[in-house]
């Protein structure tokens, strides 16, 4: 556990390009600083529900849970978008599929009628989450296999089209609530934990996120990750050194879809509700904004982006109903003036601090 945190820390706030340009040898002072910073952030995240309870601000915990879940989804999209350069405008499809897997399995669990006549429903989080990952991965394999035959604007449009197709499919699926969505009356159970308790559920999400980010960290530095980054930079070059680029892009697209499916499964449990809105193109757009806002291609950028987006959305919505009027310019300013997003701002501040 400590080891995983340590490797994560090295990556902590460093742009991917910077990492790729300077391989690490041994442990430098910067690594130690990152390690400490990472521990502090993790400690703060662990302490958060207790602080919320002490301050009598329970909604702080639920806000943090939403951030953690969207951080997983955004980081997952980032693998395709930021690292692999595949601008998918349809990743909400996988997020929504993850949610519906939980919702549908729960409905069959309650009604005790097997799905398709042979799959019995369940409310075990381990099983529903695994099923969500599997089904969204299959969908990503199908969508990706077809979409990756194109590139550029066509790719953006075709991923959008696939996601909207699924959106309308779920809108018309009356058996599973159609337009109104599906209510999951009780959260899935996990071992003996009381998932109905918001703090407990927050810790489950946090643990999943830590494991997921550790995995992404490894992937981004692996042979696969380097190949993926190479394809983003110059596909022609990669082909000419013997890399069948399509296969690697497709694999990354599938992993990316699976991560979004996992986030969707957590979201369905958190909100105890799934609806076609989870698959809507606006949801895809929000995920993209989180990635770009935080810093595409970086490990923690998308998490920062998710945090900023949700905090701004929540606080501005409490202040005025025209919150988008304020949020829009903020995003435009960040994107215009800080090319690396929030991650870029942090790197810049560190640069200034170090002279």
């Amino acid at each position: 556990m400590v080891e995983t945190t340590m490797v994560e820390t090295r990556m902590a706030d460093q742009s991917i390009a910077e990492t790729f340009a300077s391989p690490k040898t041994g442990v430098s002072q910067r690594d130690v600083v990152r390690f400490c910073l990472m521990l502090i952030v993790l400690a703060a995240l662990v302490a958060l529900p207790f602080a919320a309870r002490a301050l009598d601000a329970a909604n702080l915990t639920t806000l943090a849970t939403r951030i953690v879940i969207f951080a997983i989804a955004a980081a997952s999209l980032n693998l395709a978008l930021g690292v692999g350069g595949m601008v998918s405008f349809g990743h909400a499809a996988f997020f929504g599929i993850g949610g519906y897997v939980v919702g549908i399995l729960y409905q069959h669990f309650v009604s005790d009628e097997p799905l398709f006549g042979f799959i019995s429903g369940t409310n075990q989080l381990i099983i529903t989450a695994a099923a969500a990952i599997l089904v969204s991965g299959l969908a990503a394999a199908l969508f990706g296999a077809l979409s990756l035959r194109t590139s550029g604007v066509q790719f953006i449009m075709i991923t959008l089209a696939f996601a909207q197709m699924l959106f309308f499919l779920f809108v018309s699926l009356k058996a599973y609530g159609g337009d109104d969505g599906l209510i999951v009356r009780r959260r899935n159970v996990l071992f003996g934990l009381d998932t109905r308790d918001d703090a407990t559920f927050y810790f489950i999400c946090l643990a999943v996120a830590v494991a997921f980010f550790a995995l992404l960290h490894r992937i981004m530095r692996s042979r696969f990750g380097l190949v993926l980054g190479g394809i983003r930079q110059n596909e022609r070059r990669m082909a000419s050194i013997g890399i069948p680029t399509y296969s690697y892009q497709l694999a990354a697209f599938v992993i990316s879809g699976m991560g979004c499916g996992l986030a969707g499964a957590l979201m369905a449990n958190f909100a105890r509700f799934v609806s076609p809105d989870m698959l809507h193109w606006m949801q895809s757009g929000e995920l993209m904004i989180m990635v770009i806002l935080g810093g595409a291609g970086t490990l923690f950028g998308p998490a920062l982006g998710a945090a900023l987006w949700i905090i701004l959305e929540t606080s501005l919505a409490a202040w005025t109903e025209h919150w988008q009027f304020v949020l829009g310019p903020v995003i435009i300013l960040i994107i215009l003036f800080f090319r690396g997003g929030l991650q870029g701002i942090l790197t810049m501040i560190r640069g200034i601090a170090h002279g």
Partner: protein
Amino acid sequence: MAEALLSIDGLVKRFGGLIASDHVSLDVNAGEVHALIGPNGAGKTTLISQLMGELAPDAGTIRLGGADIAGMSTAARAHQGLARTFQITQLLDEYSSLDNVALAVQARGGHSFRFWSDARRSEPLRKTALAHLTQAGLAARTEVRAANLAHGERKQLELAVALAAAPRMLLLDEPMAGLGIADSQQMIDILRGLKGKLAMLLVEHDMDAVFALADRISVLVYGRVIASGDPESIRANAEVRTAYLGEEE
């Protein structure tokens, strides 16, 4: 007589009304340097792109080591031992020189569906890549991002990447283009050091380089091979002199 390593027969490529390759037939023997010269727009780069599988020819066959490679993807051809350099450098600009070369070493060593261990800490990959960089004269620039390299260095890196793919047949698309006299000479020396170790198809405008390196020369004009032979006979060929060499001297 043994079959040539690379043999092209009757290759045709049309872009609308323009014929970029007009029944091109030529071959390159193992270990031989075969230079391809001709005026701009003669179809030299188009020919290399067809050999590498980036462009599909309209007709004709391409054989490498006796096997027909016409239907293969670019990546598959690379695994058959074909490599190219680009006239306009195609590098991974965000990666260091060493990363650029290490990826080629990695690509040749089997699939890259390895998700866990840090590729930059792989000693064998790094060592081999460093050897190729040293050979190309870039030993002092290993950690510099490709984007920050000078033009001559980028040309050298192109060559290092192509060599790291361990080709038996190397397609060189104007490796001296845009190089100063010193850089040009260095590139010629590096290529001369490779002579005999692998076959090369050298597309080049620098006649000093061509006559210093080539065992055989073919002249391409308007997509057609108008002459082919050893350097002396090409130098003496009247048709070549009017079509091409004359304007140089």
